[in-house]
């Protein structure tokens, strides 16, 4: 049951997010197999194309998830209907069609031809990691983002202004503004890389943390019933730490691209502190759940909310710290260590926060009071554990591969060529692929959880034992 009718626009966004998530994982499995069977699907889908699809689908489905989250939580926070549900639905279709056409473009024509067809030479922005989209697609992303911000912003303006929706809005505005650097592509490679990180780093280690924090705070308010004042105070401290450490932390990308050496100090010191906000998110989530004033029947959502903090801390925090100090990064830069970190960080922080809000909101979007049936939740919790544990193993295997790679290729007295080393560490890539298959099984279970136990009654929660106000 929705508090506000217009929250319903979140539903197609969440469904599209999950559908694209499935596509992302299928392409991930193709890539993993290509690591060990080099000619797999060659020349039909070469590695570079599959990788582009894998990473771009990830970004697009997370954006669908963020937008869905905003459309769901902003009306409830602002205590008013969304400014324009029609605009939200229109933008949904524009974004989905533009995304689908872009991915089809990647798959059906050679990339150079796609660049030609879309007039890349007029305003070259293509061919940079994660920003491979044709310039016209990038313009489309900006249009969708502006319409979305207008819609959400107007809703907040006319309604109650809470810290949660304000922080979410700051994060989303930051996301849109920083994306504009995707249009700046100087011929000078140092400058190109310098500002490219303003999109990539300041997204995932900056403003996206605000979005994550706001969504987590919203879900925790709803699930635990803890006083909003307490949760909002935590939220401020967490996002303060995120920006204080993360902005200068950008320096860990400026070690070896031609920028001044002082970035090795700034980058090392500040990015060594970057685990802090993620650690605090974990403490925050567990603390709020311990101090809960009610038991919520949606236990699956609670599991995701607790899991995202822990996994973000491990993936972004610990695995980031592993290779962020300049003297370490000198050896590990651009190795499988980076890949290991990237996988668990994205999963822990951003995949899991989107799955948290979907888990919380979907029952209401589908007409339930507060939660799915027990049966559905059990399947969903199985999918949580399968995906999360297999992601831990993907990360561990890639870390093993990375340590060996760094040693054999860069550290030993007798460094060996790249491809020679790749063959030597093949076993780790095989094990990663097996873990990837288990991840897919978890994802299939996740999808199944939406279809089981539909006709069964909602799960109920045991009431908390009554406590006197003095004890509380």
């Amino acid at each position, binding site marked *: 049951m929705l508090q506000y009718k217009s929250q319903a626009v979140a539903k197609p966004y969440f469904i599209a997010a999950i559908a694209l998530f499935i596509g992302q994982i299928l392409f991930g499995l193709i890539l993993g197999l290509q*690591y060990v069977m*080099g*000619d797999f699907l*060659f*020349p039909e889908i*070469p*590695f*570079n*194309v599959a*990788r*582009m699809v894998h990473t771009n689908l990830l970004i697009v489905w997370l954006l669908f998830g963020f937008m869905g989250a905003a459309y769901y939580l902003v009306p409830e926070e602002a205590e008013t209907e969304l400014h324009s549900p029609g605009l939200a639905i229109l933008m949904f279709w524009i974004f989905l069609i533009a995304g689908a056409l872009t991915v089809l473009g990647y798959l059906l024509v050679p*990339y*150079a031809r796609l*660049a*030609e067809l879309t007039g*890349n*030479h007029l305003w*070259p922005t*293509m*061919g940079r*990691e994660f920003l*491979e989209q044709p310039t016209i697609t990038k313009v489309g992303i900006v249009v969708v983002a502006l319409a979305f911000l207008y819609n959400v912003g107007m809703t907040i303006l006319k309604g109650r202004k809470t*810290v949660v929706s304000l922080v979410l809005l700051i994060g989303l505005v930051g996301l849109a503004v920083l994306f504009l650097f995707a249009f700046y*592509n100087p*011929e*000078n*490679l*140092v*400058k*190109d*890389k*310098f500002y490219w990180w303003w999109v990539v780093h300041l997204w995932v280690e900056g403003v996206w943390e605000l979005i994550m924090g706001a969504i987590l705070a919203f879900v925790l308010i709803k699930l635990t019933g803890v006083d909003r*004042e*307490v949760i909002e*105070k935590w939220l*401020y*401290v967490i*996002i*303060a730490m995120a*920006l*204080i450490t993360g*902005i*200068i932390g950008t*320096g860990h990308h*400026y070690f*070896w*691209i*031609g920028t*001044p050496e*002082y*970035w090795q100090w*700034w980058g090392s010191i500040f990015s060594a502190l970057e685990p802090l906000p993620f650690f605090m998110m974990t403490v925050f989530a567990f603390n709020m759940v311990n101090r809960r004033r009610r038991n919520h029947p949606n236990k699956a959502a609670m599991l995701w909310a607790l899991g995202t903090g822990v996994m973000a801390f491990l993936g972004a925090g610990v695995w980031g710290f592993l290779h962020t100090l300049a003297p370490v990064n000198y050896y590990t*830069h*651009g190795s499988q260590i*980076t*890949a290991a970190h990237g996988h668990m960080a994205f999963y822990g922080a951003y995949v899991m926060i989107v799955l948290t809000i979907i888990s919380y909101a979907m029952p209401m979007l589908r007409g339930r009071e507060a939660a799915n049936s027990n049966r559905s939740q059990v399947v969903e919790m199985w999918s949580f554990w399968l995906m999360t544990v297999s992601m831990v193993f993907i990360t561990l295997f890639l870390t093993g591969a990375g340590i060996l790679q760094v040693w054999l290729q860069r550290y030993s007295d007798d460094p060996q*060529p*790249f*491809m020679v080393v*790749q063959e030597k560490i093949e076993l780790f890539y095989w094990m990663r692929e097996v873990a990837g298959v288990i991840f897919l099984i978890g994802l299939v279970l996740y999808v199944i959880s939406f279809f089981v136990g539909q006709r069964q009654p909602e799960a109920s929660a045991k009431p908390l034992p009554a406590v006197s106000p003095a004890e509380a």
Partner: protein
Amino acid sequence: MSQVFTKAMARNIFYGGSVFFILLFLALTFDTIKVLPERDNRANLTEKVAHGKAVWEENNCLGCHTLLGEGAYYAPELGNVYKRFGESKEAIKAFIASRPVEGIPGRRSMPQFNLSEEDGRAG
């Protein structure tokens, strides 16, 4: 967190801290951009070099390779390819031009990009 530490204090730390570190970041950026001309060999940034960057981008080379360590980790770094190929541009061009269209059975293979002579020289 106790009552001594209020929400208003937390909010001020967020806004104050963020603004301070954004300004510091901009100052460092300003300094970096100022000293870059002494570091980035921009005098050698000819039209051919710019064309080479376009070839790199429009063929999505970073989908497999890294450049200065950034990109994908499926194929070797290209910042040092000139050295690895015995400082021979001809060897690099010949390698790119001779990639079999159907790949190499069982192995990772670079696609045949059909680069023009001009693209090959620049790339």
